[in-house]
Protein backbone atom coordinates (compact mmCIF):
# COMPACT_ATOMS: atom_id res chain seq x y z
CA UNK A 1 0.00 0.00 0.00
CA UNK A 2 1.58 3.27 -1.09
CA UNK A 3 1.41 6.11 1.39
CA UNK A 4 0.49 9.63 0.36
CA UNK A 5 3.60 11.83 0.18
CA UNK A 6 2.58 13.92 3.23
CA UNK A 7 2.68 10.95 5.55
CA UNK A 8 5.64 10.46 7.80
CA UNK A 9 8.21 8.00 6.55
CA UNK A 10 7.59 4.39 7.40
CA UNK A 11 9.79 1.43 6.75
CA UNK A 12 7.45 0.30 3.97
CA UNK A 13 8.18 3.26 1.81
CA UNK A 14 11.76 3.58 2.95
CA UNK A 15 14.09 2.69 0.16
CA UNK A 16 15.62 -0.75 0.51
CA UNK A 17 18.96 0.97 0.91
CA UNK A 18 18.01 2.58 4.23
CA UNK A 19 16.35 -0.59 5.48
CA UNK A 20 19.55 -2.52 4.70
CA UNK A 21 21.73 0.12 6.36
CA UNK A 22 19.71 -0.28 9.55
CA UNK A 23 19.43 -4.05 9.47
CA UNK A 24 23.14 -4.74 8.87
CA UNK A 25 23.70 -3.01 12.24
CA UNK A 26 21.39 -5.34 14.15
CA UNK A 27 23.16 -8.34 15.75
CA UNK A 28 22.61 -11.82 14.34
CA UNK A 29 20.30 -13.24 17.01
CA UNK A 30 17.66 -10.49 16.95
CA UNK A 31 17.78 -10.65 13.16
CA UNK A 32 16.97 -14.36 13.27
CA UNK A 33 13.88 -13.44 15.27
CA UNK A 34 12.99 -10.58 12.95
CA UNK A 35 12.62 -12.94 10.05
CA UNK A 36 9.11 -13.35 11.43
CA UNK A 37 8.25 -9.66 11.16
CA UNK A 38 6.96 -10.03 7.61
CA UNK A 39 7.53 -12.00 4.44
CA UNK A 40 9.48 -9.21 2.80
CA UNK A 41 11.78 -8.99 5.84
CA UNK A 42 12.31 -12.72 5.79
CA UNK A 43 13.19 -12.42 2.13
CA UNK A 44 15.66 -9.57 2.71
CA UNK A 45 17.33 -11.24 5.69
CA UNK A 46 17.81 -14.50 3.78
CA UNK A 47 19.49 -12.89 0.76
CA UNK A 48 23.14 -13.93 0.31
CA UNK A 49 23.99 -10.32 -0.54
CA UNK A 50 22.48 -9.14 2.76
CA UNK A 51 24.29 -11.86 4.73
CA UNK A 52 27.55 -10.74 3.08
CA UNK A 53 26.95 -7.04 3.83
CA UNK A 54 26.12 -7.87 7.44
CA UNK A 55 29.31 -9.93 7.75
CA UNK A 56 31.38 -7.25 6.05
CA UNK A 57 30.19 -4.69 8.58
CA UNK A 58 30.87 -7.02 11.53
CA UNK A 59 34.38 -7.73 10.24
CA UNK A 60 35.32 -4.12 9.63
CA UNK A 61 33.89 -2.69 12.80
CA UNK A 62 37.15 -2.80 14.73
CA UNK A 63 36.04 -0.50 17.56
CA UNK A 64 34.86 -3.24 19.83
CA UNK A 65 36.83 -6.33 18.98
CA UNK A 66 35.91 -9.31 21.14
CA UNK A 67 38.22 -12.28 21.29
CA UNK A 68 37.09 -15.76 22.20
CA UNK A 69 39.57 -18.05 23.86
CA UNK A 70 38.71 -21.61 22.97
CA UNK A 71 40.31 -24.26 25.13
CA UNK A 72 40.44 -27.87 23.99
CA UNK A 73 39.88 -30.77 26.28
CA UNK A 74 42.33 -33.58 26.02
CA UNK A 75 41.95 -37.17 27.12
CA UNK A 76 44.12 -36.68 30.19
CA UNK A 77 43.19 -33.08 30.80
CA UNK A 78 43.37 -32.49 34.55
CA UNK A 79 41.21 -29.39 34.24
CA UNK A 80 38.35 -31.05 32.47
CA UNK A 81 35.34 -31.76 34.56
CA UNK A 82 34.39 -35.32 33.91
CA UNK A 83 30.78 -34.43 34.44
CA UNK A 84 28.32 -33.28 31.85
CA UNK A 85 28.58 -30.32 29.51
CA UNK A 86 31.70 -28.76 30.92
CA UNK A 87 33.69 -30.30 28.17
CA UNK A 88 35.46 -27.30 26.81
CA UNK A 89 35.60 -23.68 27.67
CA UNK A 90 35.02 -20.47 25.83
CA UNK A 91 35.83 -17.14 27.42
CA UNK A 92 35.17 -13.81 25.78
CA UNK A 93 37.58 -10.91 26.17
CA UNK A 94 37.03 -7.36 25.07
CA UNK A 95 40.35 -6.48 23.47
CA UNK A 96 39.96 -2.71 23.74
CA UNK A 97 40.94 -0.57 26.68
CA UNK A 98 40.22 -1.27 29.50
CA UNK A 99 40.44 -5.00 29.09
CA UNK A 100 37.31 -6.84 30.19
CA UNK A 101 36.43 -10.46 30.46
CA UNK A 102 32.85 -10.86 29.34
CA UNK A 103 31.26 -13.58 31.37
CA UNK A 104 28.49 -15.65 29.80
CA UNK A 105 28.94 -13.79 26.54
CA UNK A 106 29.01 -17.00 24.56
CA UNK A 107 27.62 -20.24 25.81
CA UNK A 108 29.33 -23.35 24.52
CA UNK A 109 26.90 -25.57 22.66
CA UNK A 110 25.65 -28.58 24.55
CA UNK A 111 26.92 -31.39 22.39
CA UNK A 112 27.87 -34.02 24.87
CA UNK A 113 26.03 -36.68 26.72
CA UNK A 114 27.40 -39.07 29.30
CA UNK A 115 28.20 -41.59 26.58
CA UNK A 116 30.31 -39.30 24.53
CA UNK A 117 33.47 -37.32 24.36
CA UNK A 118 36.91 -38.35 25.27
CA UNK A 119 38.71 -35.60 23.48
CA UNK A 120 37.53 -32.30 22.20
CA UNK A 121 39.42 -30.13 19.78
CA UNK A 122 38.89 -26.81 18.03
CA UNK A 123 39.88 -27.15 14.40
CA UNK A 124 39.60 -23.57 13.27
CA UNK A 125 37.48 -20.47 12.94
CA UNK A 126 36.73 -17.95 10.25
CA UNK A 127 34.15 -15.14 9.89
CA UNK A 128 32.42 -16.02 13.14
CA UNK A 129 32.04 -19.74 12.42
CA UNK A 130 33.92 -22.16 14.65
CA UNK A 131 34.72 -25.72 13.64
CA UNK A 132 35.41 -28.35 16.27
CA UNK A 133 35.48 -32.10 16.65
CA UNK A 134 35.16 -34.65 19.39
CA UNK A 135 35.65 -38.33 19.61
CA UNK A 136 32.78 -40.51 20.62
CA UNK A 137 33.02 -43.22 23.15
CA UNK A 138 33.71 -46.34 21.11
CA UNK A 139 30.95 -48.42 22.61
CA UNK A 140 28.43 -45.71 21.96
CA UNK A 141 29.62 -45.03 18.44
CA UNK A 142 29.59 -48.70 17.51
CA UNK A 143 25.89 -48.79 18.18
CA UNK A 144 24.77 -45.42 17.00
CA UNK A 145 27.14 -43.54 14.81
CA UNK A 146 29.27 -46.16 13.16
CA UNK A 147 29.72 -44.16 9.99
CA UNK A 148 31.55 -41.41 11.85
CA UNK A 149 34.24 -43.83 12.90
CA UNK A 150 34.39 -42.12 16.21
CA UNK A 151 35.12 -38.58 15.11
CA UNK A 152 32.26 -36.09 15.05
CA UNK A 153 32.93 -32.78 13.31
CA UNK A 154 30.61 -29.81 13.74
CA UNK A 155 30.46 -26.18 12.68
CA UNK A 156 29.20 -23.79 15.31
CA UNK A 157 27.81 -20.29 14.80
CA UNK A 158 27.92 -18.79 18.32
CA UNK A 159 26.18 -15.57 17.29
CA UNK A 160 23.14 -17.58 16.18
CA UNK A 161 23.62 -20.47 18.64
CA UNK A 162 23.39 -22.95 15.80
CA UNK A 163 25.39 -26.06 15.04
CA UNK A 164 25.78 -28.08 11.89
CA UNK A 165 27.02 -31.67 12.00
CA UNK A 166 29.17 -32.58 9.01
CA UNK A 167 28.29 -35.66 6.99
CA UNK A 168 30.63 -38.68 7.16
CA UNK A 169 33.81 -38.27 5.16
CA UNK A 170 35.21 -40.69 2.61
CA UNK A 171 38.47 -41.37 4.42
CA UNK A 172 37.46 -41.85 8.03
CA UNK A 173 39.79 -40.90 10.83
CA UNK A 174 40.87 -42.27 13.27
CA UNK A 175 41.61 -45.35 11.24
CA UNK A 176 44.38 -47.95 11.10
CA UNK A 177 45.40 -46.77 7.64
CA UNK A 178 46.31 -43.26 8.79
CA UNK A 179 48.82 -42.18 11.34
CA UNK A 180 48.10 -38.49 11.52
CA UNK A 181 45.42 -36.00 10.58
CA UNK A 182 45.52 -32.22 10.41
CA UNK A 183 42.50 -30.00 9.91
CA UNK A 184 42.04 -26.41 8.80
CA UNK A 185 38.86 -24.41 8.43
CA UNK A 186 38.73 -21.48 6.02
CA UNK A 187 36.60 -19.23 3.85
CA UNK A 188 36.86 -18.78 0.11
CA UNK A 189 35.59 -15.32 -0.91
CA UNK A 190 35.49 -16.24 -4.62
CA UNK A 191 32.90 -18.97 -4.16
CA UNK A 192 31.49 -17.56 -0.87
CA UNK A 193 32.02 -20.97 0.67
CA UNK A 194 33.31 -22.29 3.98
CA UNK A 195 35.58 -25.30 3.72
CA UNK A 196 37.16 -27.78 6.08
CA UNK A 197 40.47 -29.16 4.91
CA UNK A 198 41.64 -32.53 6.17
CA UNK A 199 45.11 -33.88 5.53
CA UNK A 200 46.09 -37.36 6.60
CA UNK A 201 49.31 -39.24 6.49
CA UNK A 202 48.99 -42.85 5.37
CA UNK A 203 51.03 -45.72 6.72
CA UNK A 204 53.45 -45.55 3.78
CA UNK A 205 54.06 -41.81 4.26
CA UNK A 206 51.57 -40.99 1.52
CA UNK A 207 49.46 -37.88 2.10
CA UNK A 208 45.73 -37.84 1.54
CA UNK A 209 43.56 -34.76 1.38
CA UNK A 210 39.82 -34.41 1.65
CA UNK A 211 37.83 -31.15 1.65
CA UNK A 212 34.34 -30.47 2.99
CA UNK A 213 32.32 -27.68 1.36
CA UNK A 214 29.54 -26.07 3.42
CA UNK A 215 27.83 -24.92 0.23
CA UNK A 216 27.69 -28.47 -1.15
CA UNK A 217 27.44 -30.06 2.30
CA UNK A 218 29.70 -32.86 1.15
CA UNK A 219 33.31 -34.04 1.16
CA UNK A 220 35.50 -34.37 -1.89
CA UNK A 221 38.91 -36.02 -2.37
CA UNK A 222 41.76 -33.90 -3.67
CA UNK A 223 43.77 -35.84 -6.20
CA UNK A 224 46.57 -33.35 -6.90
CA UNK A 225 49.93 -34.72 -5.79
CA UNK A 226 51.59 -31.94 -3.95
CA UNK A 227 54.67 -30.69 -2.23
CA UNK A 228 56.52 -33.86 -3.12
CA UNK A 229 59.46 -33.01 -0.93
CA UNK A 230 57.48 -31.70 2.06
CA UNK A 231 57.52 -34.42 4.68
CA UNK A 232 56.10 -32.75 7.75
CA UNK A 233 53.65 -30.02 8.54
CA UNK A 234 53.72 -27.63 11.41
CA UNK A 235 50.11 -27.23 12.46
CA UNK A 236 50.44 -24.34 14.91
CA UNK A 237 47.64 -21.85 14.31
CA UNK A 238 46.68 -20.28 17.61
CA UNK A 239 44.90 -17.29 16.13
CA UNK A 240 43.13 -19.06 13.28
CA UNK A 241 44.41 -16.95 10.43
CA UNK A 242 43.13 -19.31 7.80
CA UNK A 243 41.55 -17.93 4.68
CA UNK A 244 44.08 -15.18 3.99
CA UNK A 245 43.57 -14.48 0.27
CA UNK A 246 41.24 -17.49 0.15
CA UNK A 247 44.17 -19.79 0.96
CA UNK A 248 45.30 -21.93 3.87
CA UNK A 249 48.96 -21.85 4.89
CA UNK A 250 51.33 -24.13 6.73
CA UNK A 251 55.00 -24.25 7.43
CA UNK A 252 56.29 -27.48 5.95
CA UNK A 253 59.61 -29.24 6.47
CA UNK A 254 61.53 -30.28 3.40
CA UNK A 255 63.11 -33.71 3.63
CA UNK A 256 63.27 -36.05 6.59
CA UNK A 257 64.88 -34.64 9.73
CA UNK A 258 65.73 -31.41 7.98
CA UNK A 259 65.38 -27.86 9.24
CA UNK A 260 64.63 -26.52 5.77
CA UNK A 261 61.21 -25.03 5.56
CA UNK A 262 58.76 -23.76 3.02
CA UNK A 263 55.19 -22.43 3.06
CA UNK A 264 52.59 -24.74 1.64
CA UNK A 265 49.45 -22.94 0.45
CA UNK A 266 46.12 -24.48 -0.44
CA UNK A 267 43.74 -22.42 -2.56
CA UNK A 268 40.26 -23.06 -1.17
CA UNK A 269 38.51 -21.99 -4.37
CA UNK A 270 40.62 -23.88 -6.91
CA UNK A 271 41.44 -26.63 -4.41
CA UNK A 272 45.07 -26.68 -5.54
CA UNK A 273 48.38 -26.59 -3.70
CA UNK A 274 51.27 -24.23 -4.23
CA UNK A 275 54.47 -23.35 -2.43
CA UNK A 276 55.75 -19.98 -1.24
CA UNK A 277 59.38 -19.32 -0.31
CA UNK A 278 60.23 -17.99 3.12
CA UNK A 279 62.42 -14.93 3.64
CA UNK A 280 65.96 -15.37 4.92
CA UNK A 281 65.62 -15.12 8.68
CA UNK A 282 67.23 -16.51 11.78
CA UNK A 283 65.48 -19.75 12.63
CA UNK A 284 64.74 -20.40 16.24
CA UNK A 285 61.06 -20.25 17.06
CA UNK A 286 58.58 -18.99 14.50
CA UNK A 287 55.15 -19.33 13.02
CA UNK A 288 52.89 -17.89 10.35
CA UNK A 289 50.35 -15.16 10.87
CA UNK A 290 48.34 -12.50 9.15
CA UNK A 291 48.79 -8.78 9.72
CA UNK A 292 46.49 -6.22 8.07
CA UNK A 293 45.29 -8.90 5.64
CA UNK A 294 48.83 -9.89 4.62
CA UNK A 295 50.65 -13.13 5.25
CA UNK A 296 53.45 -12.69 7.77
CA UNK A 297 56.11 -14.68 9.56
CA UNK A 298 56.72 -14.12 13.27
CA UNK A 299 60.14 -15.12 14.40
CA UNK A 300 61.79 -15.21 17.80
CA UNK A 301 65.54 -15.13 17.44
CA UNK A 302 68.06 -16.69 19.83
CA UNK A 303 68.98 -13.33 21.30
CA UNK A 304 65.29 -12.72 22.04
CA UNK A 305 64.53 -10.30 19.25
CA UNK A 306 61.10 -10.69 17.70
CA UNK A 307 60.98 -10.14 13.99
CA UNK A 308 57.91 -9.72 11.83
CA UNK A 309 58.29 -10.40 8.15
CA UNK A 310 55.41 -9.28 5.93
CA UNK A 311 54.70 -10.56 2.45
CA UNK A 312 53.62 -7.37 0.73
CA UNK A 313 52.55 -8.94 -2.53
CA UNK A 314 50.84 -12.27 -2.04
CA UNK A 315 52.83 -15.21 -3.42
CA UNK A 316 55.81 -13.06 -4.45
CA UNK A 317 58.89 -14.22 -2.53
CA UNK A 318 60.78 -11.00 -3.30
CA UNK A 319 58.15 -8.94 -1.49
CA UNK A 320 59.02 -10.16 2.05
CA UNK A 321 59.85 -7.12 4.17
CA UNK A 322 60.99 -7.04 7.79
CA UNK A 323 58.87 -4.67 9.87
CA UNK A 324 59.43 -3.32 13.35
CA UNK A 325 55.84 -3.77 14.46
CA UNK A 326 56.56 -5.11 17.92
CA UNK A 327 60.11 -3.99 18.53
CA UNK A 328 58.94 -2.03 21.60
CA UNK A 329 57.72 -5.15 23.35
CA UNK A 330 60.31 -6.34 25.85
CA UNK A 331 60.78 -9.59 27.67
CA UNK A 332 60.70 -13.22 26.78
CA UNK A 333 57.62 -14.40 24.94
CA UNK A 334 56.49 -16.60 22.11
CA UNK A 335 54.72 -14.89 19.25
CA UNK A 336 51.26 -16.30 18.49
CA UNK A 337 50.04 -13.86 15.88
CA UNK A 338 47.94 -10.78 15.25
CA UNK A 339 44.25 -10.25 15.91
CA UNK A 340 42.15 -8.81 13.05
CA UNK A 341 42.62 -5.32 14.51
CA UNK A 342 46.41 -5.93 14.41
CA UNK A 343 46.95 -6.35 18.12
CA UNK A 344 49.78 -8.75 18.84
CA UNK A 345 49.05 -11.94 20.74
CA UNK A 346 51.81 -13.78 22.57
CA UNK A 347 52.46 -16.41 25.21
CA UNK A 348 54.67 -15.70 28.19
CA UNK A 349 57.14 -18.14 29.74
CA UNK A 350 54.85 -18.76 32.72
CA UNK A 351 52.02 -19.95 30.45
CA UNK A 352 49.91 -16.84 30.32
CA UNK A 353 48.97 -15.11 27.16
CA UNK A 354 48.98 -11.43 26.51
CA UNK A 355 47.90 -8.82 24.04
CA UNK A 356 50.07 -5.96 22.87
CA UNK A 357 48.72 -2.94 21.05
CA UNK A 358 51.47 -1.56 18.78
CA UNK A 359 49.67 1.78 18.43
CA UNK A 360 49.30 2.62 22.12
CA UNK A 361 52.27 0.39 23.16
CA UNK A 362 50.04 -1.07 25.90
CA UNK A 363 50.45 -4.63 27.07
CA UNK A 364 47.81 -6.71 28.81
CA UNK A 365 48.20 -10.15 30.28
CA UNK A 366 44.85 -11.76 29.65
CA UNK A 367 44.68 -15.24 31.16
CA UNK A 368 46.74 -18.25 31.92
CA UNK A 369 46.81 -21.05 29.42
CA UNK A 370 45.76 -24.25 31.08
CA UNK A 371 45.15 -26.22 27.96
CA UNK A 372 45.71 -26.06 24.28
CA UNK A 373 43.96 -22.90 23.13
CA UNK A 374 42.92 -21.02 20.06
CA UNK A 375 42.11 -17.33 20.12
CA UNK A 376 39.52 -16.25 17.59
CA UNK A 377 37.55 -13.13 16.94
CA UNK A 378 33.86 -13.07 17.75
CA UNK A 379 32.04 -11.99 14.61
CA UNK A 380 28.30 -11.65 14.14
CA UNK A 381 27.43 -14.04 11.35
CA UNK A 382 24.13 -14.84 9.65
CA UNK A 383 25.25 -18.07 8.05
CA UNK A 384 22.07 -19.98 8.76
CA UNK A 385 22.45 -23.47 10.08
CA UNK A 386 19.66 -25.54 11.47
CA UNK A 387 19.99 -25.99 15.21
CA UNK A 388 21.08 -29.45 16.22
CA UNK A 389 18.59 -31.30 18.35
CA UNK A 390 19.96 -33.87 20.71
Amino acid at each position, binding site marked *: *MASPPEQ*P*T*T*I*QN*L*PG*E*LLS*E*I*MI*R*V*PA*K*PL*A*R*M*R*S*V*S*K*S*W*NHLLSQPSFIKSHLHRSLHNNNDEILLVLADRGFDDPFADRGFHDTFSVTAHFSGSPHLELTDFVKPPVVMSRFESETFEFLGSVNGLICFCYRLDYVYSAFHLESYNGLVIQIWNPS*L*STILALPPCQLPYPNVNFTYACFRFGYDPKTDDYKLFKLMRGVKESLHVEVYSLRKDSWGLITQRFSWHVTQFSNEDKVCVDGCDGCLHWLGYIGEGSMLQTIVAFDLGMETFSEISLPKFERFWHNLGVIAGKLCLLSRTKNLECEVWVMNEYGVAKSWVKRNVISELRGVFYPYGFTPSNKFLFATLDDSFGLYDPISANTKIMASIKRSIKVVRYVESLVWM*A*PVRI
Partner: protein
Amino acid sequence: MSKKTLTLMSKDKQLFNIEEHLAVQSVTIRNMVKEDGASSVIPLPRVDSETLALVIEYLNRQQAPEEDEDYVKKFVDERGEIPTLLELAQAALDLDIKKLMDAACMKVADLIKDFTLEEVREALRIENDRTPEEEKAIRDEFQWAF
Protein backbone atom coordinates in the same frame (compact mmCIF):
# COMPACT_ATOMS: atom_id res chain seq x y z
CA MET B 1 38.49 29.70 1.38
CA SER B 2 35.94 32.52 1.44
CA LYS B 3 32.95 32.07 3.69
CA LYS B 4 30.37 31.76 0.98
CA THR B 5 26.83 30.95 2.06
CA LEU B 6 24.51 28.42 0.44
CA THR B 7 20.75 28.28 0.71
CA LEU B 8 19.02 24.90 1.09
CA MET B 9 15.29 24.48 0.52
CA SER B 10 13.31 21.77 2.32
CA LYS B 11 10.42 19.72 0.95
CA ASP B 12 7.97 22.20 2.53
CA LYS B 13 9.76 25.13 0.87
CA GLN B 14 11.53 26.54 3.92
CA LEU B 15 14.90 28.14 3.32
CA PHE B 16 18.04 27.50 5.40
CA ASN B 17 21.37 29.27 5.08
CA ILE B 18 24.64 27.50 5.77
CA GLU B 19 28.25 28.36 5.09
CA GLU B 20 29.49 26.51 2.04
CA HIS B 21 32.59 25.02 3.69
CA LEU B 22 30.30 23.39 6.29
CA ALA B 23 27.63 22.32 3.81
CA VAL B 24 30.12 20.42 1.67
CA GLN B 25 30.55 17.83 4.42
CA SER B 26 27.61 16.42 2.50
CA VAL B 27 29.10 14.69 -0.52
CA THR B 28 25.86 15.25 -2.45
CA ILE B 29 26.00 19.03 -1.89
CA ARG B 30 29.74 19.07 -2.62
CA ASN B 31 29.10 17.47 -6.00
CA MET B 32 26.29 19.94 -6.77
CA VAL B 33 28.54 22.89 -5.89
CA LYS B 34 31.31 21.46 -8.06
CA GLU B 35 29.00 20.95 -11.01
CA ASP B 36 27.21 24.25 -11.30
CA GLY B 37 28.62 26.50 -8.61
CA ALA B 38 25.23 26.28 -6.86
CA SER B 39 24.78 30.03 -6.85
CA SER B 40 21.04 29.75 -6.39
CA VAL B 41 18.93 27.80 -3.91
CA ILE B 42 19.60 24.04 -3.57
CA PRO B 43 16.27 22.19 -3.39
CA LEU B 44 16.10 19.09 -1.18
CA PRO B 45 12.67 17.73 -2.12
CA ARG B 46 12.89 14.65 0.13
CA VAL B 47 13.90 16.38 3.38
CA ASP B 48 11.27 18.14 5.53
CA SER B 49 12.11 21.36 7.36
CA GLU B 50 12.33 19.78 10.84
CA THR B 51 14.83 17.21 9.64
CA LEU B 52 16.77 19.74 7.60
CA ALA B 53 17.08 21.96 10.67
CA LEU B 54 18.63 19.00 12.51
CA VAL B 55 20.99 18.27 9.64
CA ILE B 56 22.07 21.93 9.56
CA GLU B 57 22.60 21.89 13.33
CA TYR B 58 24.82 18.84 12.88
CA LEU B 59 26.79 20.33 9.98
CA ASN B 60 27.34 23.52 11.98
CA ARG B 61 28.96 21.68 14.88
CA GLN B 62 32.37 22.96 15.86
CA GLN B 63 34.09 19.91 17.18
CA ALA B 64 37.69 18.88 17.50
CA PRO B 65 38.27 15.77 15.36
CA GLU B 66 39.00 13.55 18.38
CA GLU B 67 35.70 14.51 20.03
CA ASP B 68 33.66 14.24 16.89
CA GLU B 69 32.71 10.55 17.23
CA ASP B 70 31.31 11.16 20.71
CA TYR B 71 29.50 14.25 19.54
CA VAL B 72 27.74 12.41 16.69
CA LYS B 73 26.63 9.65 19.07
CA LYS B 74 25.32 12.16 21.60
CA PHE B 75 23.62 14.22 18.89
CA VAL B 76 21.72 11.15 17.72
CA ASP B 77 21.03 9.89 21.26
CA GLU B 78 19.28 13.13 22.12
CA ARG B 79 16.86 12.55 19.25
CA GLY B 80 15.95 9.06 20.31
CA GLU B 81 12.49 8.88 18.71
CA ILE B 82 12.39 6.35 15.92
CA PRO B 83 10.36 8.43 13.40
CA THR B 84 12.82 11.35 13.80
CA LEU B 85 15.79 9.02 13.54
CA LEU B 86 14.44 7.43 10.39
CA GLU B 87 13.96 10.84 8.78
CA LEU B 88 17.45 11.85 9.87
CA ALA B 89 19.02 8.62 8.61
CA GLN B 90 17.24 8.96 5.28
CA ALA B 91 18.35 12.59 4.89
CA ALA B 92 21.93 11.70 5.82
CA LEU B 93 21.83 8.86 3.31
CA ASP B 94 20.47 11.13 0.55
CA LEU B 95 22.93 13.90 1.36
CA ASP B 96 25.77 11.40 1.80
CA ILE B 97 26.87 12.47 5.28
CA LYS B 98 28.49 9.25 6.33
CA LYS B 99 29.04 9.70 10.06
CA LEU B 100 25.54 11.01 10.68
CA MET B 101 23.99 8.23 8.61
CA ASP B 102 26.05 5.62 10.44
CA ALA B 103 25.14 6.96 13.88
CA ALA B 104 21.42 7.35 13.11
CA CYS B 105 21.14 3.83 11.63
CA MET B 106 23.11 2.40 14.54
CA LYS B 107 20.74 4.06 17.01
CA VAL B 108 17.65 2.64 15.26
CA ALA B 109 19.30 -0.80 15.14
CA ASP B 110 20.12 -0.55 18.86
CA LEU B 111 16.54 0.38 19.72
CA ILE B 112 14.79 -2.28 17.67
CA LYS B 113 17.10 -5.17 18.54
CA ASP B 114 15.34 -5.78 21.86
CA PHE B 115 11.83 -5.10 20.59
CA THR B 116 9.22 -7.82 20.37
CA LEU B 117 8.01 -8.60 16.86
CA GLU B 118 4.85 -6.61 17.49
CA GLU B 119 6.89 -3.63 18.72
CA VAL B 120 9.11 -3.80 15.63
CA ARG B 121 6.05 -3.79 13.41
CA GLU B 122 4.48 -0.93 15.33
CA ALA B 123 7.61 1.20 15.50
CA LEU B 124 8.32 0.78 11.83
CA ARG B 125 4.65 0.49 10.77
CA ILE B 126 4.95 -2.81 9.01
CA GLU B 127 2.01 -4.93 8.10
CA ASN B 128 2.21 -8.53 9.25
CA ASP B 129 1.66 -10.40 6.01
CA ARG B 130 1.95 -13.84 7.54
CA THR B 131 -0.80 -16.21 8.50
CA PRO B 132 -0.62 -17.43 12.12
CA GLU B 133 0.47 -20.85 10.79
CA GLU B 134 3.39 -19.37 8.86
CA GLU B 135 4.45 -17.40 11.89
CA LYS B 136 4.36 -20.50 14.04
CA ALA B 137 6.54 -22.39 11.56
CA ILE B 138 9.24 -19.69 11.75
CA ARG B 139 8.91 -19.53 15.51
CA ASP B 140 9.45 -23.26 15.77
CA GLU B 141 12.49 -23.14 13.54
CA PHE B 142 14.13 -20.35 15.50
CA GLN B 143 12.71 -21.22 18.90
CA TRP B 144 15.96 -20.39 20.66
CA ALA B 145 15.82 -16.80 19.44
CA PHE B 146 12.47 -15.95 21.03
